[in-house]
């Protein structure tokens, strides 16, 4: 009887403990959101979103150039990376043989796991050094290298999910393979592919390390792809480690803007994709 009570007690304690673990980890997200909303919310004003930064020591100004600069470099990264990733995914799902498919898949996974600072070194070597200057192009290139592997794998995954019957039906009607892919398979998988792309872009929007020595920074509006350009994550870093209270305030505001954008994109993507795993398991 004693033994059973002991086992039941252990059962109750351990299961409660696991519940507490979940509570703790989930609440961290709310703590993060809470701090950012509280500190960032009282710091965001119209100036922050529209004005250029003021010299250190002067209160006010904003990070409008960093917001635009980030959009610019993420745009360049997406422009370079999404088509390559998409086509690569199509290749893996529709055409690849066993060995080449394995190699490409493996390389994409490899690239995906590379720390972003190392990607920054590569972008520096490939773009900054030959161009002799820091540039938005170098920053965008670094970001594209991170978008490609995410896009390749997600595109491939969603294309493979399209039932064979759909493909075979179209082929049976006499359509050439490329037409089948373009007009039947891809549209069928388009929801997943698009959300994969969006998630990839949202992920690189928050990256700081690869921009540190590729795009450097700029106090003014972006004025060319070959010029150093401000980016929101880099501004947050520099402002956070500085001694100016006003810069700290702006760092919180920038953090809120960045986090809102990233979380909103993620939530939207998941909502589009639909139900979670539990519902499908039954």
């Amino acid at each position: 009887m004693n033994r059973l009570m002991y086992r039941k007690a252990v059962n109750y304690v351990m299961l409660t403990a696991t519940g507490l673990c979940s509570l703790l980890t989930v609440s961290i997200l709310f703590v993060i959101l809470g701090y950012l909303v509280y500190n960032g919310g009282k710091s965001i004003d119209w100036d922050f979103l529209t004005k250029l930064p003021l010299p250190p020591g002067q209160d006010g100004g904003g990070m409008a150039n960093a917001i635009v600069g980030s959009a610019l470099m993420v745009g360049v990264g997406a422009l370079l990376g999404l088509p390559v990733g998409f086509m690569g995914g199509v290749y893996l799902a529709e055409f690849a043989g066993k060995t080449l498919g394995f190699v490409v898949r493996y390389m994409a996974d490899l690239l995906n796991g590379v720390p972003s600072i190392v990607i920054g070194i590569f972008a520096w070597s490939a773009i900054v050094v030959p161009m002799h200057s820091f540039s938005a192009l170098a920053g965008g290139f670094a970001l594209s290298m991170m978008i490609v592997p995410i896009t390749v794998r997600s595109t491939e995954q969603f294309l493979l999910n399209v039932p064979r019957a759909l493909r075979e039906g179209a082929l049976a009607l006499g359509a050439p393979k490329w037409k089948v892919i373009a007009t039947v398979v891809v549209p069928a998988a388009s929801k997943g592919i698009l959300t994969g792309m969006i998630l990839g872009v949202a992920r690189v929007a928050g990256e700081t390390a690869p921009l540190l020595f590729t795009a450097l920074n700029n106090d003014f509006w972006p004025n060319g792809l070959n010029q150093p350009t401000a980016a929101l994550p880099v501004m947050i870093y520099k402002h956070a480690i500085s001694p100016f209270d006003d810069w700290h305030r702006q760092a919180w505001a920038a953090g809120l803007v960045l986090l809102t954008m990233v979380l909103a994109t993620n939530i939207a993507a998941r909502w589009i994709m639909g139900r979670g795993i539990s519902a499908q398991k039954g």
Partner: protein
Amino acid sequence: MKNWKMPILLGLAVLSLAVVAAGQTGKATAAAKAVSMNASGASFPEFIYKKWFSDYKNSHPGIEINYQGGGSGQGIKDLTAGSVDFAASDRPLTDAELAAAKQPLYFPTVLGAVVVAYNLPSVKQPLKMTPEVVAGIFLLKITKWNDPKIAELNKGVKLPDDDITVVHRTDGSGTTFVFTEYLAKVSPEWKAGPGTGQTVKWPGGLGQAQNPGVAGAIKQNPGTVGYVEMTYVLDPKSRGNMAMAAIKNASGEFVTASVASATLAGSAAQDFPTSITNSPIKGAYPISTFTYLLIPSKIADPDKKAALAGFLKWMLVEGQKTAPELFYAPLPKPVLAKDQAQLAKLQ
């Protein structure tokens, strides 16, 4: 679920518009005979340089100078690589560096002071330190705030029984060079140990990037001490709990860093680049220094050359007037005169 395509397409459209808009803003400023230049280097004078470039842009619209203070080391590297139009450094270049950077011209801009800044909220009076104490702290020989060596200089001050945490630079820094040069002059142990340099082997402590980073680290963490330009401690916007130590100079007085004491330190200088640390002048702050812009002697683009020459001229007259507002000392007359004469050398 049918409406999901519209928001995505809308989002993509907004993104592309942003990209196009960003390109257009560049073109718009280009229309007004604009010159846009990039510079990098010392974070020591970054405070005043950014103000100058901002003021200059307000009075000369279209001339945009983007200055990024990554440290004197980065400035020299970028100038040598040709990735910036000009650079800034607190330290003189070696002959090899000058050759690699194609013999840039030194243009001193202001005098500043490297202060020993610390964060001790419970200590209300500024601490006094001798050069030996400063060296001892940064050599990690003096490890607690209430160490007898500090206490005997500050009788009547209640020092806390806390560990001293040193903060230094992680990047190649002219500020580090000036500070270590001073320490090497006053402490044989320092000279034999870490020595002088834009980076040295620190016995320990925290590192952070650039002057603002070190200032931020000291401000955020009680019990820390580090070396930064005096403006970060004097300017109320960045000061917080930070205070600076009064250092015993070569003529035996405890001097606090200020525009006046830095000016005294530089008052005997006739030429540049030159070192004015551990100056024997009465009332001079012992860790003062000039800081320089490194301008290429040959500038290919005539618009950039004109803009740069215009700025330097302005800097040597108007700029000097605004320097004390941000706690930098204007140049002494002999140095200023030589600076102005050098403007003619710009080709």
